């Protein structure tokens, strides 16, 4: 990837993190941890890899994005507003009564949301369904699914993983946001999910592992999937709560309200210096 393109993507990620913080504010409980950990993953998908834009939002051959870890949808909301799917003012009304932006993805309320998720473990099956329909219609596009690491404890994920490879659905690319923590603690200690590569490979998938905050690594791994004739999983190692040091790398920030002080500090941490803004 060219340095210039990488710099643009990195600036996008910064902007998304800052917008997330502004949307969440202080004193209100939000899913900080998992939203912040998947910022680079979604940046790479929406601003680099996916065939998706405001103009293409209804095109039958647009790439599809499924946020299977539905609680992290705020990151998707920020991106969808950046793409013009809805006005940015909506971000400030998240989870308010009557809001367009619900606590978890709602296909009927929010433009650009393609999958009803929230109750975990259902996104990959849903992606398989989209792929099966596309196959019948002769449409060719990719379906990108982002799953959580805690979510992999859900049995339906593995039912779906079997279905994907059984039906040779080779246009699904899943990314695991491996931030290491779930609601009540460390994933490996709560219910161990590793070794992930072996698990996914034995289910017929191509598996790679990347640094989930390194945009060039994520983009390279996504590009590599173009030449692989199998469903692909990218295990992206991330830091829960990435960017806000008071909650980074803890399960505390999974669903959390920042104190006023933490919020101010976070604003300083995530502020985009003058001159770097677009």
């Amino acid at each position: 990837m060219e340095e210039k393109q990488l710099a643009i993507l990195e600036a996008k990620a910064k902007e998304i993190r800052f917008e997330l913080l502004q949307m969440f504010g202080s004193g209100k409980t939000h899913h900080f941890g998992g939203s912040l950990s998947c910022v680079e993953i979604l940046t790479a998908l929406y601003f680099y890899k996916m065939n998706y834009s405001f103009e293409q939002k209804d095109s039958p051959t647009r790439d599809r994005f499924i946020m299977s870890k539905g609680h992290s949808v705020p990151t998707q909301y920020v991106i969808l507003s950046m793409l013009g799917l809805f006005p940015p003012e909506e971000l400030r009304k998240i989870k308010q009564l009557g809001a367009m932006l619900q606590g978890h993805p709602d296909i009927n309320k929010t433009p650009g949301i393609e999958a009803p998720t929230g109750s975990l473990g259902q996104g990959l099956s849903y992606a398989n369904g989209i792929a099966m329909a596309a196959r019948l219609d002769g449409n060719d596009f990719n379906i990108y699914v982002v799953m959580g690491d805690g979510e992999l404890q859900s049995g339906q994920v593995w039912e779906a993983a079997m279905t994907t490879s059984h039906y040779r659905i080779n246009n699904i690319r899943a990314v695991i946001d491996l931030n290491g923590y779930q609601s009540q603690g460390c994933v490996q200690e709560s219910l161990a999910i590793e070794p992930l590569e072996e698990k996914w490979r034995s289910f017929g998938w191509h598996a790679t592992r990347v640094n989930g905050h390194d945009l060039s690594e994520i983009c390279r791994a996504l590009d590599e999937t173009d030449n692989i004739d199998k469903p692909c999983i990218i295990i992206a190692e991330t830091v829960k709560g990435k960017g806000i040091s008071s909650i980074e790398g803890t399960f505390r920030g999974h669903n959390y309200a920042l104190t006023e002080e933490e919020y101010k500090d976070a604003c300083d941490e995530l502020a985009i210096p003058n001159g770097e803004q677009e």
Partner: protein
Amino acid sequence: MSEEATRDRFGEALLQLAREDKNVVALDCDLGRSTRSFHITQADENRFLEMGISEQDMISTAAGMAHEGKIVFANTFAVFATGRCFDQIRQQLSLARLNVKVCGSSAGLTQGPDGATHQAVLDVSLMRTLPNMVVIVPADGPQTEAAVRAAYEHQGPVYLRLSRYNCKNIYKEGYAHDIYKAVELKEGQDVAIVVCGPILGHALEAADLLEKDGVSAGVINIPVIKPLDTEGVMKAAEKYPVLVVVEEHSVYGGLGSAVAETVAEMKVIDKAIVAREGIKDDFGESGTAAELLDKHELDAEGIAKKVMRNI
């Protein structure tokens, strides 16, 4: 009078729809030859997807297909179709209003020898609680054909309850009624038997038995449990002093509950007493369909007894 199981007519009707509309697809969980969903392969083998024994995966896959414009019939035994994947139905069909028809086959006690684990007696209750869900319990072949078409024509999730029980065809071919309306098949004066599903024939026979005992019993068939034809129910509650609702289902949450709720809220003094008759807070067990209907008083003699106890 001809006999058939509603699952058989379902398979034929599904095949017919698949021939008419290339967007009709069927999914099944290793029971396609029993549920008759496999019939669709006669139109196009690519429009049948074997999902294996994974009901949760099937419902979510169906939701994804529906999102892309497919009209998806998702099949397995009723006990699994409603219980095992309730959360997937709640989140991805009911809340999301996606166009999937959940087809619960071998429903009720008449599933027979497999026993309680395989006999759906709570399915209508479960599906009726879900917003946006249409719940249909067809009684015979012709009504099943109309039900399958109504499910296809309805844009949104539907639960279709089907049976393996060979029952009498009551209706003429080319079902002449609005499926969403109650049908008074027999007029009476003392009591009306309100009924859904393949025991409809038994209810009609029960009315004949009662007549011999000097009781004038009407028979009202309600194929759509949700949205309930409340107007039809209220009319019946004003016409008859007693409504005895019989169903091959728990008395909690099914047709009996739906009718009782409607009548309870009627703002008139002079209205029917409603009796809910069916499976009384219990499971089934192994036995033949006939033995189980006899034990739970859902055959003609049993229904007649139930009526006599309530008037």
